[in-house]
């Protein structure tokens, strides 16, 4: 080996060829993976931007995805990588060296003189550059194009009527200071749990059912409380009227009525204020002489005031209040009730019902049946041909005996053979 300079030169050239081809193979595997990663992250970015919640780790995650794709591509392309021998061969072919480099690398003959010229290959821009540019453009577009925030255009503005009614009653109960505050607080927490839901879910079936149940529970409690207060008030009024002339029988009746009212208050769904209960339990018709008429009157007035508050405040008969047409539509309070049917108005923009489900439209009129709809069914027996099928053929037998002049044999050509024959006879 005389010319070590030539050998060094060609070895460097071969290494460059190897590097470029290996980079080409790696790119060929990497680019599809990069496009896939870019599309996934671009879609994710658009979604995050729409809900205004781009996570802090998004871009590091994207970088990690690209690195993973690069490693995957390297592992996949590794089998195709060029060796130094392949580099020499490539140079032999492109420079027309008659495999002199390959032979010289194997120790046969000397390396040829230095010669300029590449490996006869160039980058294919459409395969190598465009996908990268496309991915950059995709991610940039996903990051910069204006995205409108997702709006809930048809979110209800008013809560269901039952909820509003319940809230009104709870306020009244708090003002009257008749019910047990803990019970009222418990009911309020239940109501708040309903109202804290997204407005889109207010009119869901489960929410409305829960609200109705809460309202019924509150209504029943108020009605019971009214009755008990009335009982107590009546007993107090009787005590005031009879005064000191009450017989033991009268006292017993009054005591029973008073006890019934107090017990009702105590065991009612809404409970009773502890002070009120204590005062009422302190009344003893047998010792009513110890109460001054003023005290009796004050207690009776409080009972009446409470009754008035309960009867004036809560509109027990007004539970049909229907904001946004609730229960005024065709559903009529059934399980599928809601805001009702959409108003049939002529408008430039369609009515957004905020519905994400698609429902089939079914025609009940057979006169207007569409193609494909079942308009009727008929039950009948199968029409079976009872005659046994006998093809009269067996393997290798003639399909048709034929008579003189008949074509009894036919050759089916494949499309490829037909093409050849057509070309031949053209």
């Amino acid at each position, binding site marked *: 080996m005389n010319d070590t300079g030539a050998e060094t030169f060609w070895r460097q050239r071969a290494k460059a060829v190897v590097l*470029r*081809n290996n980079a*080409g*193979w790696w*790119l*060929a595997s990497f*680019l599809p993976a990069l496009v896939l990663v870019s599309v996934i992250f671009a879609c994710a970015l658009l979604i995050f931007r729409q809900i205004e919640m781009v996570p802090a780790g998004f871009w590091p995650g994207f970088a990690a995805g690209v690195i993973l794709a690069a490693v995957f591509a390297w592992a996949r392309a590794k089998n*195709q990588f*060029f060796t130094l*021998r*392949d580099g020499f*061969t*490539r140079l*032999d*072919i492109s420079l*027309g060296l*008659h*495999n*002199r480099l*390959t*032979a010289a690398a*194997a120790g*046969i*003959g000397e390396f040829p003189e230095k010669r300029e010229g*590449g490996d*006869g*290959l*160039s*980058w*294919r821009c459409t*395969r*190598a550059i465009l996908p990268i540019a496309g991915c950059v453009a995709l991610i940039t577009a996903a990051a910069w194009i204006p995205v409108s925030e997702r709006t809930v255009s048809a979110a209800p503005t008013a809560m269901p009527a039952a909820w509003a009614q319940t809230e009104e009653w709870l306020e009244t109960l708090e003002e009257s200071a008749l019910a047990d505050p803990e019970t009222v607080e418990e009911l309020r927490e239940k109501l708040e749990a309903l109202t804290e839901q997204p407005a889109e879910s207010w009119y869901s079936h489960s929410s409305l059912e829960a609200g109705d149940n809460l309202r019924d529970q509150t209504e029943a409690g108020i009605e019971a409380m009214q009755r008990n207060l009335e009982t107590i008030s009546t007993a107090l009024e009787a005590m005031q009227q009879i005064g000191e002339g009450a017989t033991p029988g009268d006292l017993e009746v009054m005591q029973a009525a008073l006890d019934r009212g107090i017990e009702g208050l105590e065991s009612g769904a809404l409970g009773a204020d502890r002070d009120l209960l204590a005062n009422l339990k302190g009344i003893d018709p047998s010792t009513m002489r110890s109460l001054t008429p003023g005290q009796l009157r004050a207690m009776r007035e409080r009972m009446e005031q409470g009754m008035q508050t309960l009867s004036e405040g809560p509109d027990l008969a007004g539970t049909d209040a229907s904001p946004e047409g609730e229960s005024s539509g065709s559903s009529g309070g059934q399980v599928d009730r809601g805001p009702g049917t959409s108003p049939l108005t002529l408008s430039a923009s369609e009515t957004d019902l905020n519905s994400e489900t698609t429902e089939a439209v079914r025609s009940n009129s057979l006169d207007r049946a569409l193609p494909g709809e079942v308009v009727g069914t008929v039950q009948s027996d199968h029409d079976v041909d009872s005659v046994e099928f006998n093809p009269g053929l067996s393997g290798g037998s003639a399909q048709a005996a034929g008579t003189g002049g008949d074509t009894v044999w036919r050759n089916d050509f494949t499309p*490829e*053979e037909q093409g*050849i*024959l057509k*070309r*031949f006879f053209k």
Partner: protein
Amino acid sequence: MIDHATETDVADASVKLNKLRTTLNTVLFGQETLIDQVIIGLLARGHLLLEGLPGLGKTELVKGLARALHLESKRVQFTPDLLPGDITGNPMLQEIEGRRQFVFQPGPLFANLVLADEINRASPKTQSALLEAMQERRVTVMGEAHPLPDPFFVLATQNPIELEGTYPLPEAQLDRFLFKLSVRRNDVAVLEKIVMNREIGVEPVVNPVLDREEFLAIASLTLRIFLPGVVANYIARLVDGTHPGASAAAGGIKFGASPRAALGMAAAARARALLDGRLNASFEDVQAIAVPVLQHRIVLDYTARIDGRSAEDVVRAILAEVPAQDRPIPPTLQAAKA
């Protein structure tokens, strides 16, 4: 460990072979490629099948070759009534020292260069008598084997027209021929040169260029030409590509080439490298000898025949389809525009 040829050996041989090439070019005008292929075939120790119309100089080439190499040559005109013994030789009953015994009389096969003219006119029996001679380089008569002289080459000719009354060579015998060479007609300029320099019935004077020993030395040097692994791989892929399903171009092939074809390609590639004065065979050598080595070893199906494709067309299509380098180029790279 093969003792590969040195640059000095190759240079000396190349000088002598170039003299042979020049001499033959004075015998046969305008057939440079054919002459190169014939020399390559002889260096690779292969038998040659020459196909061409009458009068194109096939016999003249063989005669000139025999004289230039100073080798014994014989010519056999094959006819349907030619018997195997007519070419291999027959035992003759002779009286020697008062006793009658059979003495083997060698036939025309016992020569260094045998010109088998119109080989396809002989009966299959006679054709097959050539099989042993071509492959084993010996003939067996009455249980006794007689070695043929070294070197031994059969240069057979056949006429592509007038096929009535001929017996096409079977595939097994075709496979024994290293090359099938097509002798093309000459153009006007060459014809003019022939008319000016030749007289009908007068053979050109050819001086010996090499003697038998020199030729054998050069032929043995051919075996010492380096065949790189990538070139051997290319030969293997080309031969494999001749089999149906192995390549798209092999769509019209019924039967592909044999491993003997691969060996023949390797030997011919080495010979071409030596003729070109190189120490190693190359992809270009393989591509240059692929058609003469493969075209008579593949059997086309009827679709290719109806489509008008010849075996040469199919081999060229395979050459175009099978890349020289086994490692493919990545799709992100392309051949640079010149």
